[in-house]
């Protein structure tokens, strides 16, 4: 009987469909008693990670229902933020609170909804209070989650353009006699005023 139990076990394991006792016996050597072998087999798998279950008048092996949670695989993919997203984020961080129109003006291209949505979803930005300008546009500010992710205590800790250049992060030197350097004139002035409002609301 031990041998017959092994046979039933192998057949049920490899079968793609539940098998009836008749089918089992038709595949086993003549004179086997699949019914009895099944009784033994079911007892053997009692409480195991795999069960012998009856489906209609056929039998099949299935994973134990309480282990169903193992049958999923979670993969975590890490991706780099897109260039548009990181630039938008940078502008928000440096200029907050900042409106969409202002971001677009600085980037020179329109900001897609998807980009803002992505940053909102990451909880790196949130809506700030509305600007007291015509149309009362909504503003964006960075969140504590953002500071946490980038290891900043405060958005004011972000280095200014001058420091970025000193650190070699600006590969390009502007041609002599070109536009006055950005971020050094009123630009930055304004940026600092912006920053002071940080997290006030």
């Amino acid at each position, binding site marked *: 009987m031990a041998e017959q139990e092994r046979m039933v076990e*192998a057949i049920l*394991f*490899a*079968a*793609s*469909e539940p098998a009836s006792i008749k089918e089992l016996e038709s595949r086993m050597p003549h004179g086997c008693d699949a019914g009895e072998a099944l009784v033994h087999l079911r007892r053997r798998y009692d409480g195991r990670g795999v069960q012998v279950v009856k489906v209609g008048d056929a039998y*099949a092996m*299935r*994973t134990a229902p309480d282990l169903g949670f193992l*049958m*999923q*695989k*979670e*993969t*975590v*993919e*890490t*991706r*780099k*933020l897109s*260039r548009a*997203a*990181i*630039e938008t*984020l*940078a*502008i928000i*961080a*440096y200029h907050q609170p900042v409106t969409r129109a202002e971001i677009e003006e*600085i*980037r*020179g291209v329109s900001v897609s909804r998807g980009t803002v949505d*992505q940053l909102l979803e*990451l909880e790196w930005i949130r809506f700030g209070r509305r600007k007291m300008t015509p149309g009362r546009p909504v503003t964006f500010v960075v969140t504590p989650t953002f500071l946490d*992710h*980038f*290891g*900043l205590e405060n958005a004011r800790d*972000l*280095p200014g*353009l001058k420091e*970025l*250049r000193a650190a070699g*992060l*600006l590969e*390009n030197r*502007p*041609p002599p006699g*070109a*536009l006055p*350097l*950005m*971020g050094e004139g009123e630009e930055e002035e304004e940026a600092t005023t912006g920053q002071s409002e940080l997290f006030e609301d």
Partner: protein
Amino acid sequence: MADTTFEEDTLSVTERMAAEALIVDVDGFEGPLDLLLTLSRTQKVDLRKISVLQLAHQYLAFVEQAKALRLELAADYLVMAAWLAFLKSRLLLPPDPAEEGPSGEELAAHLAFQLERLQAMRDAAARLMARDQLGRDFFARGQTHEVKRTRRITYTATLLDLMQAYARTRTRDEFRPFTMDRDAVFTMEQALERMRGLIGYAGEWGDLMSFLPEGWETDPARRRSATAATFAASLELVKEGRLELRQSETFAPIQLRKKD
């Protein structure tokens, strides 16, 4: 690959039968080494004790027979025959101290090694295929449980990314992309457009130089560019069958006129 091809033209019946026997054999061989291995089996000894000299004889006899039957043997069989004839002479003649290179014995030993190794690999292949195989002797789970895959995507960026991005946006308009200053270049497209408009009036032979655009005739750089472009455009129009070109001699002015 037994690339051996055989011709059967006007052979007698006995010859034809002999040839067929050979064809059957040769077709089954995968190259000279395989043939040598088969021939070596007729010696009925351990491959390590094989007589390479005898094997060379057998092989050369085989090739001779193929030649007698006017069968065309693939080149590699003939290369091997030549090499075995060389080996045979080395094995038979007393070693010449002045001669360079490996001795006949060394060469023979290597050939024996190759045959033994090929045989060993064939045996290994047979043993491998005789193993229990998945889907034939043992089986995987027939009804697999589908594993649900959930993919979670996280996005990251570093402070450096952030700062570089900011630097990029704030310095973007300080620069204009590098472009060649091309104010002295008259493009072929420009010339073609201009010529298409002008050829309608070129009923008579006219100098190519008279078709240069205004303001491009004096400055040498501009004239050179305009001349080249206009000439190239003219050739294009000749190709289209709309213009004829002629030049009486080398360096003579090039003339053109409309073709009807």
